């Protein structure tokens, strides 16, 4: 059983991408303010990045390299698509 920290940050990334999809890394970090109860950890954003990478591994989010840096896209929403 984990501390729940990672799960919260996963929910944080999902909440952000439901608001703006796709979003750049910079946008994701800036939008954390909208979900303070979910987006926890150091202000520098490493925890949210790790959560995003976890979602990529699960196939829920796709990450693409673009001229705006990495673009994160929610391609399957476990909440609405079951």
């Amino acid at each position, binding site marked *: 059983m984990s501390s729940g920290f990672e799960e919260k940050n996963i929910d944080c990334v999902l909440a952000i991408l439901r608001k703006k999809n796709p979003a750049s890394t*910079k946008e994701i970090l*800036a939008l954390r303010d909208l979900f303070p109860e979910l987006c926890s950890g*150091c202000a*520098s954003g*490493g925890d949210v990045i790790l959560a995003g990478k976890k979602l990529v591994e699960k196939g829920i989010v796709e990450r693409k*390299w673009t001229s*705006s*840096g*990495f673009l994160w896209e929610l391609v399957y929403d476990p909440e609405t698509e079951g």
Partner: protein
Amino acid sequence: MVVWHRIRKDFPVLDQLYEGKILIYFDSACMSLKPKQVWETIEYYYRYLSACGGAGRSTHSLGTETSLLAEEARDKVAKFINAKDSREIIWTRNATEGLNIAANSISITKNQNIVTTSLEHHSGMLPFYERAKKVGSEFRIVNASKDGRFDLSDFEKKIDDNTRIVSLVHASNVTGTIAPLKEIIEIAHEHNALVISDEAQYAPHAPLDVKKLDVDIAVLSMHKACGPSGMGVLYGKYDLLEEMDMFFVGGDVIEDVVYKDGKIIPKYLPPPHKFEAGLQNYAGMMGVGAAVDYLMNIGMEEVHNREQSLLRKLLRGMLDLEGIEIIGSTELKNRAALVSFRPKSDVVSHNDVSMYMNDMLPQHRIMMRAGNHCVHPFAYSIGMNPGKGEGSVRASLYIYNTFDEIEVFLGALEDFLRTIG
């Protein structure tokens, strides 16, 4: 003469392909890699000893050898930093723990003040901030310039006869700048203030002589100096250690706990043991001893010179790139072997750089730290906003890095910048 490619062979982590790619490790300011000599020593403890050491705890054969090797490691650390006496060396988990011990164990009164700087790691600032808050002491901050340097006259203004403690980072983990510690210590001592230096980023990379510096307390993170993770050292002048209170108490720190007439009367051991409560990380201590042996066999001057050569190539190469902003000084002089930077871009994050380097290169994974490196006050002071996810990327070097790796990194950074236009 040191044959550096043979040194590199002592670090098998670098021999592996990680998911098919060659590793380039540029995150030694966070955690150094470990030479085989260190983990073989740790393995020796677990394979052949696995027993209690410590102040007279277990006197059987395995316990005796454990105590002996752990105390030998303490002697080696004393030699490594040129302490007068091994009793001045206290084992901790890391520099952070050392700073917390120091902040909470030195007597201070309400009318005294604590001086620190805007360039401190949170570990060098918060323990003292909290102590000052608890006691009601004034907490003073000397501001570093935008390039991470100090003006000695600022210390002269902030330190006065009521200053009890000056807490100062010797080499910054963000800007790499090296503070004029000797001069600051002289200013502090003129006012009878104690100086506590954070040596986490200095001691692994250059000769540290605590006697010559005349520093009162110095803390080290040995996991940044080829040692095992979770091992640190607090050095303190013996007289000061004797008068300091303990932050942790319990087993191993006492001579006796008398129970008389319904009252407890503890009699504590002298330093260093009065600071080392409970069963210790004996394997870690021995690993630190092996790490110190390893570095001293190379020679700390050699380590320093090698890193300066690597840094020269890295810094010059980065200065040629227009799309990045280097955080801190761009000079080579008085600088540790690390460079923090961020892309000059409104849309790209510092995290994009570290992810690109780790994930997107065809043949390599370059590992660096992205963030604010636990020095948020300095970030705010130079106009960066950690609260909005702004930060920098840090490339930090050590003895196993090569000129070829720096070449690969500079090429990758150029490609990155070209992509983002």
